């Protein structure tokens, strides 16, 4: 089922949580709402679910207006950040809950419920935990049960509110791969909220980047990462170094390198360079930025160097571990920086 969101606006007191949001969720896709905390992504999800009502705008479920429909008519499955499992029920009862509480006409038989619940528990690979209580499970297991519970009622839309936010990195990585596989299996239209750009890039079919209650960009992970629509998107999707420059006849120059800024007018410009897109060298080339290595931080497979430039700015450079060892870079050494790739934004102010 597709979802269309038209001009949704929501205000809490003087705070504008959502400002004229327009987007479409295609049938069967997995869409990520990505943004920093407080950007309105959770509010938007709750508006879609019907847990909050919007001040203005329209929500269409499969083309029909659902703006004023009650939560129960929308047939959504919702997975909460902190699981929200019913504590006094076993895992089996939790998953069966949505089926058992249906009115008699639409309620499946007890045997059918049992079959369905076990099928779902197998799907989330936790069949052996059916008789446990939520308190006896780990965080990752609880979240998978919460997902099974949401899927039990065969929702038309699955909404996940930072589903892996409360889990540790290892479990989170495992679960997001698992979620992707699960989605490929069941193909239910899903929207999930996250503030983790890696998670969004890895799992989603399309990403909606939000900031301050507005949509900054909508696109596939490749589009969003390779062609960020605004400095905010670029900054949010990874670490950046910022250089000031000027656009002149469609080109901006940083450290002797020219970067294309097609279609941008001549003006002061912000040039962003990702730490792993900067080369270090000991020999000076035309226009390269001179600096001195300040700190070296080992981050597992990569090494991050902080280079102090002559204008007392700090530039971060990320090297692959082997590269770093081969170069034998030392703290305090004088080096030259040459960016390989950059993103130019003319006429933006931060």
């Amino acid at each position: 089922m597709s979802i269309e969101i038209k001009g949704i606006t929501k205000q809490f007191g003087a705070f504008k949580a959502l400002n004229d949001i327009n987007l479409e969720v295609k049938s069967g896709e997995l869409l990520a709402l990505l943004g920093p905390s407080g950007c309105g992504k959770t509010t938007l999800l709750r508006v879609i679910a019907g847990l909050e009502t919007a001040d203005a705008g329209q929500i269409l479920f499969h083309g029909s207006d659902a703006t004023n429909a009650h939560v129960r008519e929308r047939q959504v499955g919702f997975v909460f950040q902190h699981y929200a499992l019913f504590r006094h029920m076993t895992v089996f009862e939790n998953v069966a809950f949505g089926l058992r509480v249906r009115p008699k006409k639409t309620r499946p038989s007890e045997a059918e419920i049992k079959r369905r619940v076990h099928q779902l528990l197998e799907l989330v690979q936790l069949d052996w935990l059916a008789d446990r209580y939520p308190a006896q499970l780990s965080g990752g297991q609880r979240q998978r049960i919460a997902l099974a519970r949401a899927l039990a009622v065969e929702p038309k839309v699955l909404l996940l509110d930072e589903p892996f936010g409360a889990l540790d990195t290892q479990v989170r990585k495992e679960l997001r791969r698992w979620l992707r596989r699960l989605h490929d299996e069941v193909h239910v239209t899903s929207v999930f909220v996250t503030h983790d750009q890696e998670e969004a890039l890895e799992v989603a079919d399309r990403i909606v980047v939000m900031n301050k209650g507005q949509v900054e960009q909508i696109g596939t992970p490749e589009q969003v990462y390779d062609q960020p629509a605004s400095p905010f998107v670029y900054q949010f999707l990874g670490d950046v170094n910022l250089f000031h420059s000027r656009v002149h006849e469609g080109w901006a120059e940083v450290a002797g390198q020219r970067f294309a800024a097609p279609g941008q007018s001549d003006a002061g410009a912000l040039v962003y360079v990702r730490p792993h897109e900067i080369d270090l060298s000991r020999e000076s080339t035309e226009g390269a930025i001179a600096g001195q290595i300040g700190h070296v931080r080992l981050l597992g497979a990569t090494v991050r160097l902080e280079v102090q430039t002559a204008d007392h700015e700090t530039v971060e450079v990320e090297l692959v571990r082997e590269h770093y060892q081969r170069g034998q870079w030392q703290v305090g050494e004088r080096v030259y920086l040459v960016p390989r790739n950059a993103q130019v934004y003319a006429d933006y102010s931060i």
Partner: protein
Amino acid sequence: MDTTPPFASLDACPPGSDADFALSGRLELSTVSALWQETRQRIAGPTRIDASKVSACDGAGAALLFDLHRQGARIAGLRPEFQRLLDSLEPDKPFAPGKLAHRKPLLIRAGQFLHDWLLELRQQITFTGAIAADLADLVRHPRNLRWQDFLRQCELTGANALPIISLIAFLIGVILAFQSALPLRQFGAEIFVANLLGLSLVREMGPLITAILLAGRTGAAFAAEIGTMKVNEEVNALTTFGFDPVRFLVLPRLLAGLLMAPLLTACAEIVGLVAGALVLEGFGIPFNTFFHQVASSTNLADFVGGMVKAAVFGLEIAAIGCLRGLATGAGASAVGSSTTRAVVQTLVILVVTDGLFAMLYYYLKI
């Protein structure tokens, strides 16, 4: 490496030059404190300061320059890197006014209070309406209630509260009987203790004592239980399953309160009377005489009046407990505050209701 201790100085410039004073040396934590004293004594009002000979400047130095700038001094010739340090402190920006100093006027605060109060009133009216609608629906379709939940709540509210309520009722009975028997004995009227005990327990003390205990025990538990569910988003989870939290969570508790409060009150009355009888036994009045006296002084109307009152109390306790639970905000501390509010609000409402019942019964001549 330079081994001389860091040094900074403030010198007056010869008249006729561009500046009034010249700062030189290293403006660092170790030098600034002495220099600051000096500037305070020598520099006042708008002056021109030449800072071109400053060779180092850290956060403390920047603070000094910031302070001078605030006093109206114009600092010139600072090296760009130090100038940037000073600029990052935004010396031209006025200080944000302190929050305490800026208290809102009385009228606005009064308006805000009224606004909050009206919001809460609306919430209460909505809740009452939702309960009434659900109760009316229940009468037509009794199968919609989750009877299992109802029975469990009855057990928690009623059966489990029996020991504590019996104990308190027993003690109240003993105390009332003993305290009234002593003065009445002076007139040889101990037998009228039975009248006093019967009437006061059945009409007033029984329902009220039970209700106060229930408020602390059950009302608080309802608020905490539903509040925790609210904080954990279990209430929202119920909603997404198409459930009305009022029907699912509140109705069983409400009915349990409505039914259990009168039953507990009846128990409390019996235990209290037995306790009184035991005391009077000590004063030489036999059981038979005591209960005969009680039966002749209290009538069915007294008892029914007490029961009706107890039922209303039970309803109020459960409703306020559930309402406060559902109105719980976010965070674990919200559960604590809503529990406290539930108990306090219930106690106030209980006393007010008791007063209203006293008036009602007076006019109905019960």
